[in-house]
Protein backbone atom coordinates (compact mmCIF):
# COMPACT_ATOMS: atom_id res chain seq x y z
CA UNK A 1 0.00 0.00 0.00
CA UNK A 2 2.74 2.52 0.93
CA UNK A 3 4.51 1.53 -2.28
CA UNK A 4 1.32 1.95 -4.28
CA UNK A 5 0.63 5.45 -2.98
CA UNK A 6 4.22 6.45 -3.81
CA UNK A 7 3.83 5.27 -7.41
CA UNK A 8 0.40 6.90 -7.70
CA UNK A 9 1.69 10.22 -6.30
CA UNK A 10 4.59 10.12 -8.77
CA UNK A 11 2.19 9.42 -11.66
CA UNK A 12 0.00 12.38 -10.61
CA UNK A 13 3.04 14.67 -10.72
CA UNK A 14 3.11 14.07 -14.50
CA UNK A 15 -0.36 15.57 -15.13
CA UNK A 16 -0.08 18.22 -17.81
CA UNK A 17 3.60 17.51 -18.48
CA UNK A 18 4.87 17.05 -22.03
CA UNK A 19 7.71 14.62 -21.48
CA UNK A 20 9.51 12.63 -18.80
CA UNK A 21 12.86 10.92 -18.57
CA UNK A 22 12.76 7.63 -16.66
CA UNK A 23 14.91 4.73 -15.55
CA UNK A 24 13.73 1.26 -14.57
CA UNK A 25 11.73 0.24 -11.50
CA UNK A 26 9.17 2.43 -9.76
CA UNK A 27 9.80 5.55 -11.93
CA UNK A 28 8.97 3.49 -15.01
CA UNK A 29 5.83 2.07 -13.39
CA UNK A 30 4.71 5.58 -12.40
CA UNK A 31 5.26 7.05 -15.87
CA UNK A 32 3.41 4.20 -17.61
CA UNK A 33 0.59 4.60 -15.07
CA UNK A 34 0.47 8.34 -15.85
CA UNK A 35 -0.03 7.50 -19.55
CA UNK A 36 -2.82 5.05 -18.65
CA UNK A 37 -4.74 7.32 -16.28
CA UNK A 38 -3.77 11.00 -16.48
CA UNK A 39 -1.81 11.87 -19.56
CA UNK A 40 -2.04 9.58 -22.61
CA UNK A 41 0.15 11.90 -24.71
CA UNK A 42 3.07 11.93 -22.24
CA UNK A 43 6.34 11.28 -24.13
CA UNK A 44 8.58 8.76 -22.35
CA UNK A 45 12.36 9.06 -22.76
CA UNK A 46 14.65 6.18 -21.75
CA UNK A 47 18.42 6.70 -21.83
CA UNK A 48 18.82 3.70 -24.10
CA UNK A 49 17.79 6.13 -26.85
CA UNK A 50 14.08 5.40 -27.14
CA UNK A 51 11.94 8.53 -27.51
CA UNK A 52 8.17 8.21 -27.21
CA UNK A 53 8.19 4.57 -26.10
CA UNK A 54 4.71 3.17 -25.31
CA UNK A 55 5.37 0.09 -23.19
CA UNK A 56 2.44 -2.11 -22.26
CA UNK A 57 4.46 -3.75 -19.46
CA UNK A 58 7.01 -2.37 -17.02
CA UNK A 59 10.41 -3.08 -18.62
CA UNK A 60 13.08 -4.94 -16.62
CA UNK A 61 15.86 -3.04 -18.37
CA UNK A 62 15.89 0.23 -20.29
CA UNK A 63 16.98 -1.81 -23.30
CA UNK A 64 13.94 -4.10 -23.44
CA UNK A 65 12.88 -4.54 -27.05
CA UNK A 66 9.31 -3.37 -26.42
CA UNK A 67 10.70 0.13 -25.83
CA UNK A 68 12.45 0.25 -29.21
CA UNK A 69 9.52 -1.38 -31.01
CA UNK A 70 6.98 1.18 -29.76
CA UNK A 71 9.17 4.33 -29.85
CA UNK A 72 8.65 7.30 -32.17
CA UNK A 73 12.41 7.50 -32.64
CA UNK A 74 15.43 5.53 -31.50
CA UNK A 75 18.71 7.46 -31.26
CA UNK A 76 22.32 6.86 -30.24
CA UNK A 77 23.50 7.60 -26.70
CA UNK A 78 25.53 10.63 -27.81
CA UNK A 79 22.49 12.06 -29.59
CA UNK A 80 20.23 11.39 -26.59
CA UNK A 81 22.45 13.39 -24.24
CA UNK A 82 23.70 16.09 -26.64
CA UNK A 83 20.59 16.90 -28.69
CA UNK A 84 17.72 15.97 -26.37
CA UNK A 85 18.64 16.04 -22.68
CA UNK A 86 21.37 18.72 -22.67
CA UNK A 87 19.33 21.51 -24.29
CA UNK A 88 16.35 20.89 -21.96
CA UNK A 89 13.97 19.26 -24.44
CA UNK A 90 12.77 16.81 -21.75
CA UNK A 91 10.55 18.55 -19.21
CA UNK A 92 10.73 16.28 -16.17
CA UNK A 93 13.22 13.66 -14.99
CA UNK A 94 12.52 10.92 -12.47
CA UNK A 95 15.67 9.88 -10.60
CA UNK A 96 16.42 7.45 -7.79
CA UNK A 97 19.46 7.25 -5.50
CA UNK A 98 20.99 5.33 -2.61
CA UNK A 99 21.41 8.54 -0.58
CA UNK A 100 19.62 11.90 -0.62
CA UNK A 101 20.62 14.91 1.50
CA UNK A 102 18.71 18.04 2.57
CA UNK A 103 19.70 19.84 -0.65
CA UNK A 104 18.37 16.93 -2.75
CA UNK A 105 21.90 16.13 -3.87
CA UNK A 106 22.18 12.43 -4.69
CA UNK A 107 24.70 9.63 -4.19
CA UNK A 108 24.67 6.58 -6.44
CA UNK A 109 28.43 5.93 -6.43
CA UNK A 110 29.77 4.49 -3.14
CA UNK A 111 28.93 3.92 0.52
CA UNK A 112 32.05 4.61 2.56
CA UNK A 113 35.33 5.96 1.25
CA UNK A 114 35.77 6.25 -2.53
CA UNK A 115 39.18 4.53 -2.60
CA UNK A 116 38.09 1.67 -0.30
CA UNK A 117 34.31 1.59 -0.39
CA UNK A 118 32.19 -0.43 2.01
CA UNK A 119 29.63 -0.83 -0.77
CA UNK A 120 30.38 -0.13 -4.37
CA UNK A 121 27.17 1.17 -6.00
CA UNK A 122 26.58 1.17 -9.80
CA UNK A 123 27.77 4.74 -10.37
CA UNK A 124 26.52 7.85 -12.13
CA UNK A 125 24.92 6.47 -15.28
CA UNK A 126 23.01 9.28 -16.92
CA UNK A 127 21.91 11.02 -13.71
CA UNK A 128 24.32 14.01 -13.48
CA UNK A 129 23.57 15.42 -16.94
CA UNK A 130 19.88 14.46 -16.78
CA UNK A 131 19.59 16.46 -13.54
CA UNK A 132 21.44 19.34 -15.19
CA UNK A 133 19.51 19.32 -18.47
CA UNK A 134 15.93 18.68 -17.37
CA UNK A 135 14.21 21.78 -15.92
CA UNK A 136 12.31 19.72 -13.31
CA UNK A 137 13.70 16.75 -11.39
CA UNK A 138 11.54 14.50 -9.22
CA UNK A 139 13.43 12.12 -6.93
CA UNK A 140 11.72 8.85 -6.05
CA UNK A 141 13.22 7.04 -3.06
CA UNK A 142 12.24 4.88 -0.07
CA UNK A 143 12.03 6.92 3.12
CA UNK A 144 14.54 5.70 5.72
CA UNK A 145 17.45 7.17 7.68
CA UNK A 146 19.81 5.05 5.54
CA UNK A 147 18.64 6.85 2.40
CA UNK A 148 17.86 10.34 3.77
CA UNK A 149 21.23 11.19 5.28
CA UNK A 150 22.83 14.19 6.97
CA UNK A 151 25.95 13.80 4.82
CA UNK A 152 26.37 12.07 1.44
CA UNK A 153 29.30 9.67 1.14
CA UNK A 154 29.71 10.90 -2.46
CA UNK A 155 27.95 13.63 -4.40
CA UNK A 156 27.09 12.07 -7.75
CA UNK A 157 24.29 14.40 -8.86
CA UNK A 158 23.28 17.95 -8.01
CA UNK A 159 19.84 18.66 -6.58
CA UNK A 160 19.68 22.17 -8.07
CA UNK A 161 16.73 21.40 -10.39
CA UNK A 162 14.83 19.17 -7.97
CA UNK A 163 11.19 20.20 -7.57
CA UNK A 164 9.98 17.30 -5.39
CA UNK A 165 11.11 14.16 -3.58
CA UNK A 166 8.33 11.58 -3.48
CA UNK A 167 8.80 8.83 -0.91
CA UNK A 168 6.64 6.03 0.44
CA UNK A 169 5.73 8.33 3.37
CA UNK A 170 5.13 11.71 1.77
CA UNK A 171 6.44 14.54 -0.39
CA UNK A 172 9.39 16.86 0.27
CA UNK A 173 9.88 20.05 -1.71
CA UNK A 174 12.74 22.55 -1.64
CA UNK A 175 12.02 25.74 0.31
CA UNK A 176 14.91 28.23 0.34
CA UNK A 177 17.26 25.49 -0.81
CA UNK A 178 16.29 22.91 1.82
CA UNK A 179 13.96 19.95 1.44
CA UNK A 180 10.83 20.57 3.47
CA UNK A 181 7.99 18.18 4.23
CA UNK A 182 4.91 19.50 2.41
CA UNK A 183 2.66 16.43 2.29
CA UNK A 184 2.22 13.10 4.04
CA UNK A 185 0.47 10.10 2.54
CA UNK A 186 -2.83 8.97 4.13
CA UNK A 187 -2.27 7.41 7.57
CA UNK A 188 1.31 8.71 7.93
CA UNK A 189 2.15 11.13 10.75
CA UNK A 190 4.65 13.99 10.51
CA UNK A 191 6.47 12.37 13.43
CA UNK A 192 6.96 9.15 11.49
CA UNK A 193 8.49 11.04 8.56
CA UNK A 194 10.80 12.90 10.97
CA UNK A 195 12.00 9.60 12.44
CA UNK A 196 12.67 8.20 8.97
CA UNK A 197 14.82 11.19 8.01
CA UNK A 198 18.50 11.30 8.95
CA UNK A 199 18.57 15.05 9.58
CA UNK A 200 16.40 17.49 11.55
CA UNK A 201 13.63 17.66 8.96
CA UNK A 202 12.06 21.03 8.19
CA UNK A 203 8.27 20.84 8.09
CA UNK A 204 5.99 23.24 6.19
CA UNK A 205 3.57 25.42 8.19
CA UNK A 206 0.69 23.46 6.78
CA UNK A 207 1.29 19.88 5.72
CA UNK A 208 -1.13 18.50 3.15
CA UNK A 209 -2.35 14.93 3.02
CA UNK A 210 -1.98 13.13 -0.29
CA UNK A 211 -5.36 12.50 -1.86
CA UNK A 212 -6.45 8.86 -1.41
CA UNK A 213 -5.87 6.69 -4.49
CA UNK A 214 -8.94 6.53 -6.71
CA UNK A 215 -10.43 3.21 -7.78
CA UNK A 216 -9.30 3.98 -11.33
CA UNK A 217 -5.70 4.60 -10.24
CA UNK A 218 -5.55 1.47 -8.10
CA UNK A 219 -7.12 -0.73 -10.75
CA UNK A 220 -4.77 0.56 -13.46
CA UNK A 221 -1.67 0.18 -11.27
CA UNK A 222 -2.58 -3.37 -10.21
CA UNK A 223 -3.32 -4.36 -13.79
CA UNK A 224 0.03 -2.93 -14.93
CA UNK A 225 1.95 -4.77 -12.19
CA UNK A 226 0.08 -8.01 -12.95
CA UNK A 227 1.22 -7.87 -16.59
CA UNK A 228 4.68 -8.67 -15.16
Amino acid at each position, binding site marked *: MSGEIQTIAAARSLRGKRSVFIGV*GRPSTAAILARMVHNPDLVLFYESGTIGAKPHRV*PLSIGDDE*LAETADAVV*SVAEMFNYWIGPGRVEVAFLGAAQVDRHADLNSTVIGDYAGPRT*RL*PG*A*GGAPEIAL*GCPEVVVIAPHSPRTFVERLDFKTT*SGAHTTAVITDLGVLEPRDGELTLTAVHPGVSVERVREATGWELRVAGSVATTEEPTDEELAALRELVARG
Partner: protein
Amino acid sequence: MADVVDLREAVAALVRDGDAVAMEGFTHLIPFAAGHEVLRQGRTALELIRMTPDVLYDQLIGMGAARRLVFSYAGNPGVGSLHRIRDAVEHGWPRPLELEEHSHAGMANRYAAGAAGMPCALMRGYVGTDLERHTRVERVTCPFTGEQLVAVPALEPDVAIVHAQEADRAGNVQLWGIPGVQKEAVLAAKRSLVTVERIVDALELRPGGVVLPGWTIDAVAVAPGGSRPSYAHGITRRDNDFYRQWDAISRDRERFAAWMEANVLAAVAA
Protein backbone atom coordinates in the same frame (compact mmCIF):
# COMPACT_ATOMS: atom_id res chain seq x y z
CA MET B 1 37.14 -4.91 -46.84
CA ALA B 2 36.59 -6.80 -43.63
CA ASP B 3 37.56 -10.43 -43.75
CA VAL B 4 34.76 -12.80 -42.83
CA VAL B 5 36.56 -15.23 -40.55
CA ASP B 6 36.10 -17.72 -37.75
CA LEU B 7 35.54 -16.10 -34.32
CA ARG B 8 38.54 -17.92 -32.79
CA GLU B 9 40.80 -16.72 -35.54
CA ALA B 10 39.47 -13.15 -35.28
CA VAL B 11 40.01 -12.89 -31.52
CA ALA B 12 43.49 -14.47 -31.80
CA ALA B 13 44.47 -11.95 -34.47
CA LEU B 14 42.95 -8.79 -32.97
CA VAL B 15 43.01 -8.97 -29.15
CA ARG B 16 46.32 -8.93 -27.25
CA ASP B 17 47.21 -9.12 -23.57
CA GLY B 18 47.14 -5.67 -21.97
CA ASP B 19 44.94 -4.16 -24.68
CA ALA B 20 42.32 -1.49 -24.06
CA VAL B 21 39.22 -3.31 -25.29
CA ALA B 22 35.76 -1.78 -25.76
CA MET B 23 32.97 -4.36 -26.10
CA GLU B 24 29.96 -2.12 -26.68
CA GLY B 25 26.21 -2.53 -27.03
CA PHE B 26 24.03 -0.31 -24.82
CA THR B 27 21.61 -2.77 -23.18
CA HIS B 28 21.25 -4.41 -26.64
CA LEU B 29 23.55 -6.39 -28.97
CA ILE B 30 26.08 -7.06 -26.20
CA PRO B 31 28.87 -9.17 -27.74
CA PHE B 32 28.82 -12.13 -25.31
CA ALA B 33 30.14 -14.76 -27.75
CA ALA B 34 33.22 -12.69 -28.58
CA GLY B 35 33.83 -11.80 -24.93
CA HIS B 36 33.67 -15.47 -23.99
CA GLU B 37 36.17 -16.30 -26.73
CA VAL B 38 38.53 -13.66 -25.27
CA LEU B 39 38.25 -15.53 -21.95
CA ARG B 40 38.83 -18.95 -23.53
CA GLN B 41 41.98 -17.65 -25.19
CA GLY B 42 43.24 -16.56 -21.77
CA ARG B 43 43.77 -12.87 -22.50
CA THR B 44 44.92 -11.02 -19.38
CA ALA B 45 45.66 -7.55 -17.97
CA LEU B 46 43.01 -5.97 -20.18
CA GLU B 47 41.74 -2.45 -19.78
CA LEU B 48 38.02 -3.02 -20.27
CA ILE B 49 36.00 -0.07 -21.54
CA ARG B 50 32.22 -0.13 -21.59
CA MET B 51 29.45 2.29 -20.58
CA THR B 52 27.41 -0.39 -18.81
CA PRO B 53 29.72 -3.31 -17.85
CA ASP B 54 26.67 -5.61 -17.57
CA VAL B 55 26.93 -9.36 -16.96
CA LEU B 56 29.61 -9.72 -19.68
CA TYR B 57 32.23 -7.65 -17.85
CA ASP B 58 31.13 -9.14 -14.51
CA GLN B 59 32.24 -12.45 -16.04
CA LEU B 60 35.53 -11.17 -17.50
CA ILE B 61 36.44 -9.33 -14.29
CA GLY B 62 35.37 -12.24 -12.08
CA MET B 63 37.70 -14.48 -14.09
CA GLY B 64 40.58 -12.06 -13.52
CA ALA B 65 41.05 -11.00 -17.15
CA ALA B 66 41.10 -7.25 -16.41
CA ARG B 67 43.39 -4.84 -14.59
CA ARG B 68 41.31 -1.73 -15.21
CA LEU B 69 37.68 -0.78 -15.91
CA VAL B 70 36.51 2.41 -17.63
CA PHE B 71 32.73 2.75 -17.28
CA SER B 72 29.68 4.83 -16.34
CA TYR B 73 27.12 2.43 -14.79
CA ALA B 74 28.09 -0.92 -13.26
CA GLY B 75 24.78 -2.48 -12.27
CA ASN B 76 22.63 -5.41 -13.35
CA PRO B 77 19.74 -3.41 -14.87
CA GLY B 78 16.50 -3.87 -12.96
CA VAL B 79 18.10 -6.55 -10.76
CA GLY B 80 20.80 -4.99 -8.58
CA SER B 81 24.55 -5.34 -8.18
CA LEU B 82 27.19 -6.88 -10.40
CA HIS B 83 28.67 -9.02 -7.63
CA ARG B 84 31.94 -10.01 -9.30
CA ILE B 85 32.81 -6.37 -10.05
CA ARG B 86 31.90 -5.41 -6.48
CA ASP B 87 34.08 -8.24 -5.13
CA ALA B 88 37.01 -6.98 -7.24
CA VAL B 89 36.54 -3.36 -6.10
CA GLU B 90 35.69 -4.05 -2.47
CA HIS B 91 38.03 -7.02 -1.80
CA GLY B 92 40.50 -7.15 -4.70
CA TRP B 93 39.26 -10.61 -5.70
CA PRO B 94 40.46 -12.32 -7.83
CA ARG B 95 42.73 -9.32 -8.40
CA PRO B 96 42.53 -5.58 -7.73
CA LEU B 97 40.67 -3.56 -10.31
CA GLU B 98 41.54 0.04 -11.07
CA LEU B 99 38.48 2.16 -11.89
CA GLU B 100 38.01 5.17 -14.13
CA GLU B 101 34.39 6.26 -14.03
CA HIS B 102 32.40 8.84 -15.90
CA SER B 103 28.77 9.67 -16.54
CA HIS B 104 26.96 8.23 -19.57
CA ALA B 105 27.13 11.61 -21.28
CA GLY B 106 30.86 11.75 -20.57
CA MET B 107 31.50 8.27 -22.00
CA ALA B 108 29.34 8.86 -25.08
CA ASN B 109 31.14 12.13 -25.77
CA ARG B 110 34.54 10.45 -25.26
CA TYR B 111 33.68 7.83 -27.89
CA ALA B 112 32.32 10.51 -30.24
CA ALA B 113 35.58 12.48 -29.89
CA GLY B 114 37.54 9.31 -30.65
CA ALA B 115 35.44 8.66 -33.74
CA ALA B 116 35.93 12.26 -34.87
CA GLY B 117 39.69 12.09 -34.40
CA MET B 118 39.47 14.92 -31.87
CA PRO B 119 41.60 14.91 -28.68
CA CYS B 120 38.62 15.74 -26.46
CA ALA B 121 34.94 16.63 -26.39
CA LEU B 122 33.29 19.62 -24.73
CA MET B 123 30.18 19.29 -22.62
CA ARG B 124 28.31 20.60 -19.60
CA GLY B 125 28.42 18.44 -16.50
CA TYR B 126 30.74 17.11 -13.76
CA VAL B 127 31.14 20.58 -12.17
CA GLY B 128 29.76 20.62 -8.63
CA THR B 129 29.90 16.84 -8.22
CA ASP B 130 32.51 14.65 -6.51
CA LEU B 131 33.02 12.81 -9.81
CA GLU B 132 35.04 15.76 -11.07
CA ARG B 133 37.81 15.12 -8.49
CA HIS B 134 37.94 11.38 -9.14
CA THR B 135 38.13 11.17 -12.90
CA ARG B 136 39.76 12.61 -16.01
CA VAL B 137 38.00 15.87 -16.86
CA GLU B 138 39.27 19.44 -17.10
CA ARG B 139 37.37 22.71 -16.90
CA VAL B 140 37.60 24.92 -19.96
CA THR B 141 36.12 28.28 -20.83
CA CYS B 142 34.23 28.72 -24.08
CA PRO B 143 36.28 31.24 -26.12
CA PHE B 144 33.11 32.70 -27.66
CA THR B 145 30.71 33.03 -24.72
CA GLY B 146 32.89 32.63 -21.64
CA GLU B 147 30.69 29.77 -20.40
CA GLN B 148 32.41 27.27 -18.12
CA LEU B 149 32.42 23.83 -19.74
CA VAL B 150 34.34 20.61 -19.19
CA ALA B 151 36.56 18.73 -21.61
CA VAL B 152 36.61 14.93 -21.53
CA PRO B 153 39.49 13.07 -23.22
CA ALA B 154 38.80 11.06 -26.39
CA LEU B 155 38.52 7.28 -26.07
CA GLU B 156 40.74 5.43 -28.53
CA PRO B 157 40.53 1.73 -27.68
CA ASP B 158 43.06 -0.70 -29.12
CA VAL B 159 40.14 -2.91 -30.13
CA ALA B 160 36.38 -2.41 -30.39
CA ILE B 161 34.16 -5.49 -30.40
CA VAL B 162 30.46 -5.21 -31.25
CA HIS B 163 27.63 -7.51 -32.32
CA ALA B 164 25.22 -6.77 -35.19
CA GLN B 165 22.31 -8.42 -36.94
CA GLU B 166 23.92 -8.95 -40.34
CA ALA B 167 26.79 -8.49 -42.74
CA ASP B 168 27.12 -9.08 -46.47
CA ARG B 169 29.87 -11.19 -48.02
CA ALA B 170 32.14 -8.16 -48.37
CA GLY B 171 31.88 -7.54 -44.62
CA ASN B 172 29.59 -4.49 -44.73
CA VAL B 173 27.61 -4.53 -41.48
CA GLN B 174 24.15 -3.32 -40.50
CA LEU B 175 22.61 -3.13 -37.03
CA TRP B 176 19.22 -1.75 -35.98
CA GLY B 177 17.11 -1.25 -32.87
CA ILE B 178 18.81 0.57 -29.97
CA PRO B 179 22.08 1.78 -31.58
CA GLY B 180 24.01 2.66 -28.39
CA VAL B 181 27.59 3.79 -29.06
CA GLN B 182 28.72 0.99 -31.36
CA LYS B 183 29.36 3.14 -34.43
CA GLU B 184 31.42 5.57 -32.37
CA ALA B 185 33.33 2.74 -30.65
CA VAL B 186 34.27 1.05 -33.95
CA LEU B 187 35.35 4.32 -35.58
CA ALA B 188 37.31 5.37 -32.46
CA ALA B 189 39.23 2.08 -32.15
CA LYS B 190 42.53 1.12 -33.77
CA ARG B 191 41.20 -2.37 -34.60
CA SER B 192 37.68 -3.76 -34.69
CA LEU B 193 35.77 -7.01 -34.72
CA VAL B 194 32.07 -7.37 -35.47
CA THR B 195 30.17 -10.59 -34.77
CA VAL B 196 26.89 -11.01 -36.67
CA GLU B 197 23.80 -13.17 -36.48
CA ARG B 198 23.96 -14.00 -40.20
CA ILE B 199 25.58 -13.30 -43.55
CA VAL B 200 23.25 -12.05 -46.30
CA ASP B 201 23.77 -11.60 -50.03
CA ALA B 202 22.93 -7.91 -49.86
CA LEU B 203 22.15 -5.58 -46.95
CA GLU B 204 18.54 -4.42 -46.99
CA LEU B 205 18.63 -0.93 -45.45
CA ARG B 206 16.38 -0.58 -42.39
CA PRO B 207 14.77 2.53 -40.86
CA GLY B 208 17.17 3.76 -38.20
CA GLY B 209 19.71 1.19 -39.28
CA VAL B 210 23.40 1.87 -38.66
CA VAL B 211 25.70 0.76 -41.47
CA LEU B 212 29.41 0.21 -40.95
CA PRO B 213 31.17 -0.10 -44.32
CA GLY B 214 33.38 -3.18 -44.45
CA TRP B 215 36.53 -1.12 -44.89
CA THR B 216 36.06 0.41 -41.40
CA ILE B 217 36.22 -3.05 -39.79
CA ASP B 218 39.09 -5.55 -39.51
CA ALA B 219 37.13 -8.76 -39.12
CA VAL B 220 33.56 -10.03 -39.24
CA ALA B 221 32.73 -13.37 -37.61
CA VAL B 222 29.42 -15.22 -37.72
CA ALA B 223 28.06 -15.92 -34.22
CA PRO B 224 24.32 -16.74 -34.26
CA GLY B 225 22.81 -15.87 -30.87
CA GLY B 226 26.14 -14.20 -30.10
CA SER B 227 24.59 -11.52 -27.89
CA ARG B 228 22.64 -13.90 -25.61
CA PRO B 229 21.47 -13.29 -22.84
CA SER B 230 21.31 -9.79 -24.33
CA TYR B 231 19.50 -9.72 -27.68
CA ALA B 232 19.57 -8.83 -31.34
CA HIS B 233 16.48 -6.76 -32.16
CA GLY B 234 14.13 -8.66 -34.46
CA ILE B 235 16.08 -11.93 -34.14
CA THR B 236 16.52 -12.96 -30.50
CA ARG B 237 14.82 -11.80 -27.26
CA ARG B 238 16.50 -10.46 -24.13
CA ASP B 239 16.66 -13.29 -21.59
CA ASN B 240 15.40 -11.34 -18.57
CA ASP B 241 15.18 -14.56 -16.52
CA PHE B 242 18.89 -15.15 -16.97
CA TYR B 243 19.71 -11.61 -15.83
CA ARG B 244 17.69 -12.35 -12.66
CA GLN B 245 19.39 -15.75 -12.19
CA TRP B 246 22.82 -14.17 -12.59
CA ASP B 247 22.33 -12.45 -9.23
CA ALA B 248 22.50 -15.77 -7.37
CA ILE B 249 25.12 -17.37 -9.65
CA SER B 250 27.51 -14.44 -9.28
CA ARG B 251 27.02 -13.82 -5.54
CA ASP B 252 29.21 -16.77 -4.57
CA ARG B 253 32.81 -17.12 -5.82
CA GLU B 254 32.75 -20.90 -6.13
CA ARG B 255 29.35 -21.10 -7.76
CA PHE B 256 30.46 -18.44 -10.23
CA ALA B 257 33.69 -20.30 -11.07
CA ALA B 258 31.83 -23.57 -11.61
CA TRP B 259 29.25 -21.86 -13.81
CA MET B 260 31.93 -20.22 -15.94
CA GLU B 261 33.84 -23.51 -16.27
CA ALA B 262 30.74 -25.39 -17.43
CA ASN B 263 29.12 -22.73 -19.60
CA VAL B 264 31.96 -20.66 -21.00
CA LEU B 265 35.40 -22.27 -20.72
CA ALA B 266 34.27 -25.76 -21.71
CA ALA B 267 32.09 -24.45 -24.53
CA VAL B 268 33.28 -24.25 -28.11
CA ALA B 269 33.25 -20.96 -30.01
CA ALA B 270 30.26 -20.48 -32.27
